[in-house]
């Protein structure tokens, strides 16, 4: 069972090439899909290419358009880039060929080097369930289907047995079926070196911060006052989303599972906001790495992966893969984690007014939904390894396998386990 990694590649392109890149991306999303060969990468969960439009930063800097590649994958990011440069060469050359400095005569080594050079770090990376790889997700869906079919056909034979006995019957069935046999053994955990590293990080960060904690506590009231003064000067965005742009976005979203989401925005200018955003992101990064890594992002259970990335020191992109509709996604944000959204996106220009960063903000439903639409970006190419499975489904399937892998269950345990089927 592998750990999960993120890859983000950002490549500037000459403004004159923008339209050509858009055409290429439209082709790569449609008739030319096979050129990217994403299905040839075994551990790839999701991949996307999007053209990030240029703009003028709040400090007046002119930013040109760029092409962004993002992937959520099992195993190491370096290995993925190497595989990409080889297996997906045709698509890469077509997509990135118009970008500044792409090799004239690309070969796998040259492409890998170029991708590595354009890789940018994620400020925070959320994984729904750390350790659950693509092959496991797909296999466990097959396991559920197999057990469901068995129960459909044999319900009358087992309905009078005790729950523990039914579990035993299903286990015996799985042991005799070569397709299901893997499910009688627990999924492997990520490698020991990786777990050790994570545990060291879990402990080291608080240890390092402990000595400065009193200082932070003393500073908090002053930070709060400074924050409030900044907030009073903020100008919320009152612009309504362009109906045509919303229609374009809608045409590509609202699938059952999973949908790509992307939003791009500038941070509020000034060192105070810059530092605040870094601190919040560092906190989020630590929290999602060690605490919120079991199917639940502070109450939202429909997100497969998410990442926050600095495009420039003043500009950020948020990318996620979520289940359901954008409307339900936004409602989840507002109803369940408004404070979390506020904490990070409240540092973005035009965000609905916040009070001490955590309050109000997204709770102003209409302002928040407009703001989000105004900053949403199209994912021009999107690829998913599992189109029909929600994060909840994958979690439930994993629980089915965990139960099946146990040699025996007590009646109450078996009853709860059978309710998953």
């Amino acid at each position: 069972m592998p750990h999960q990694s993120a890859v983000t590649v950002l490549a500037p392109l000459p403004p004159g090439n923008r339209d050509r890149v858009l055409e290429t991306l439209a082709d790569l999303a449609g008739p030319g899909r096979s050129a990217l060969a994403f299905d040839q990468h075994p551990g790839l969960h999701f991949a996307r290419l999007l053209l990030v439009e240029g703009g003028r930063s709040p400090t007046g800097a002119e930013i040109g358009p760029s092409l962004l590649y993002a992937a959520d994958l099992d195993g190491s990011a370096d290995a993925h880039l190497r595989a990409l440069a080889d297996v997906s060469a045709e698509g890469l050359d077509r997509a990135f060929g118009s970008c500044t400095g792409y090799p004239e005569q690309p070969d796998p080594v040259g492409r890998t080097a170029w991708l590595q050079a354009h890789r940018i770090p994620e400020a925070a990376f959320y994984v729904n369930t750390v350790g659950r790889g693509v092959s496991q997700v797909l296999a466990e869906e097959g396991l559920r289907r197999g057990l469901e079919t068995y129960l459909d056909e044999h319900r009358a034979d087992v309905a009078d047995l005790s729950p523990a006995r039914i579990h035993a019957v299903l286990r015996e069935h799985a042991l005799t079926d070569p397709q299901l046999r893997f499910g009688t053994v627990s999924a492997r955990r990520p490698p020991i070196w990786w777990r050790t590293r994570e545990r060291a990080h879990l402990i080291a960060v608080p240890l390092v911060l402990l000595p400065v904690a009193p200082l932070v506590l003393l500073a908090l009231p002053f930070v709060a006052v400074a924050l409030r003064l900044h907030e009073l000067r903020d100008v919320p965005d009152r612009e309504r989303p362009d109906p045509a742009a919303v229609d374009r976005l809608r045409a590509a979203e609202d699938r059952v599972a999973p949908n790509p989401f992307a939003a791009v925005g500038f941070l509020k200018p000034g060192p105070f906001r810059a530092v605040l955003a870094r601190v919040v992101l560092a906190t989020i990064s630590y929290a999602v790495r060690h605490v919120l890594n079991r199917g639940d992002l502070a109450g939202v259970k429909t997100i497969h992966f998410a990442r926050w990335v600095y495009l420039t020191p003043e500009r950020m992109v948020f990318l996620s893969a979520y289940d359901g509709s954008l409307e339900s996604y936004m409602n989840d944000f507002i109803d369940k984690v408004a404070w979390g959204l506020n904490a990070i996106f409240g540092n973005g220009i035009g965000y609905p007014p916040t009070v001490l960063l955590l309050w109000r903000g997204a709770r102003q439903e209409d302002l928040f939904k407009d703001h989000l639409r105004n900053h949403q970006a199209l994912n021009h190419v999107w690829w998913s390894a599992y189109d029909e499975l929600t994060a909840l489904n994958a979690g439930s399937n994993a629980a089915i396998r965990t139960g099946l892998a146990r040699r025996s269950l007590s009646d109450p345990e078996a009853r709860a386990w059978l309710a998953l089927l």
Partner: protein
Amino acid sequence: MARSALTTDRRRMRGTGPAPTPGAAPHRAGPAAAGTGAPPPVTGRRRGLDRADVQGLVGSGYGRLPEAVFLGLQVDDGAAGRTLLADLLPLVTSMADDRTDRALNVALSHPGLARLGMPQTALAGFSLEFAGGMAAPTRSAFLGDVGEQAPATWAWGGPDNARVDLLLFLYARSAEELTAHRDSVRQRFPAAGVREVVALPTTPVSPRDHLGFADGISQPEVTGLHGRSERGVALGEFLLGYPNAYGRRTRRPLLPAADDPGRVLPPAPRADAPDSVDLGRNGSYLVVRTLAVDVEAFWGHVHRWAARTGLPAEQVAAKMIGRWPDGTSLTVSPDQPLGDEPVDNAFRYHRDGDAAGLGCPIAAHVRRANPRDSLDPRPGSDASVQVNDGHRLIRRGREYGPAPGTSDGTGPEGDRGLHFLCLNANLSRQFEFVQHTWLNNPAFAGLQGSPDPIAGHHPPDGDGVFPVPADPVRHRLLDLPRFVRLRGGGYFFLPGVRALHHLAADPAHQSSVRDGKDLP
């Protein structure tokens, strides 16, 4: 939402007063209209609800008036449309006229509002969903109105049908009185410029819907709608101009005060726009969906799976609906109907011990149309109910077509179904969310491959499954057929009474004139 449309409103109909005195004037206009067509005075009350300014359909489904017909009109000439609207104003029933023995309500589509001369700036104040209409491609994809259900196949409201700019809702006590009411309305149609393009007859209100089930039981309690102080869903969830579930006033068209020289419209709150009047206040979005119901296919499926599972047919049907035919909740009484009148409707799924759906299946129609306390955050908590409250609908549907002859539906053949009507202030968060994320979604609440068995979108020969939780092993009903087919519909706006008066007035004096005649 199919069944929901079989709303009869007979139980919880508010404002149903004593029967009108026989021989009373056929249409006593209420204080709002007073027979003069004058708009109700602006009361200046900012908090309480001005009932005379709210069309009656918001307050009740007119259960006291069992006969109804809906007329769709196309407006080719804006002036003729305004004349008609002005002529109809004295007949329009407000919530204050709660004892009339006939009723008329008027709703308009977005193109209809444009035809009547509403300026572009005001038109842009409506929600995107309403402006685009229910038959817009992105809405069809979202709502599952594709394939056999696509707008191109509709009997009305689709791209190949005549445009419905104005939809009139007529109600009366008897068939004879409805005919007279309809004729008197039709007499007011101008000779040219407005055409009736669709008439939707309905079945007299009855205690059971075509499938044989009581319906319309769960309507939201709305704070302040009926003048009581009970705690409920925020008024702004259903009427524009009031704080909604998030304490915000949903976006709506506001006009410069200069565009309302007669001071017909209420002033807009200063915080929203200074020196403006509120065209949306006391109005609501009205969703109309004509859903043909295949009663025979439903009971055929029920009997087939009753035989295969060994469960009684009535129980299989009840599991799919989520209530017993008499309305008793399966959570309240899993094994038999109670026959209570009124039914216990204060239950919650998690709090009352039905988290796993052993009583009412998770996938059952009524449980997913209104999950109560079933969903995150913290199922079983008030916080869960509070989130649920952001997705409520006031249902006002009426059935159409002959009632099936016997209780199991093997009666006279015929086109029958439901004109599903619902009211909400935010189409995207309320109606569309319920249809997409709760009914159609095969992964609702962690399910897999299980759309709503009655109203959810799924391919006609699809592999939809309906899991019936049971101890220790669930049943699964496979090969779910489609029982409901969308035959027409649209998004309409049900304006406040004063807004209707404003729309009926000649816009020539307004700052941004746009007459229907000039439209393509």
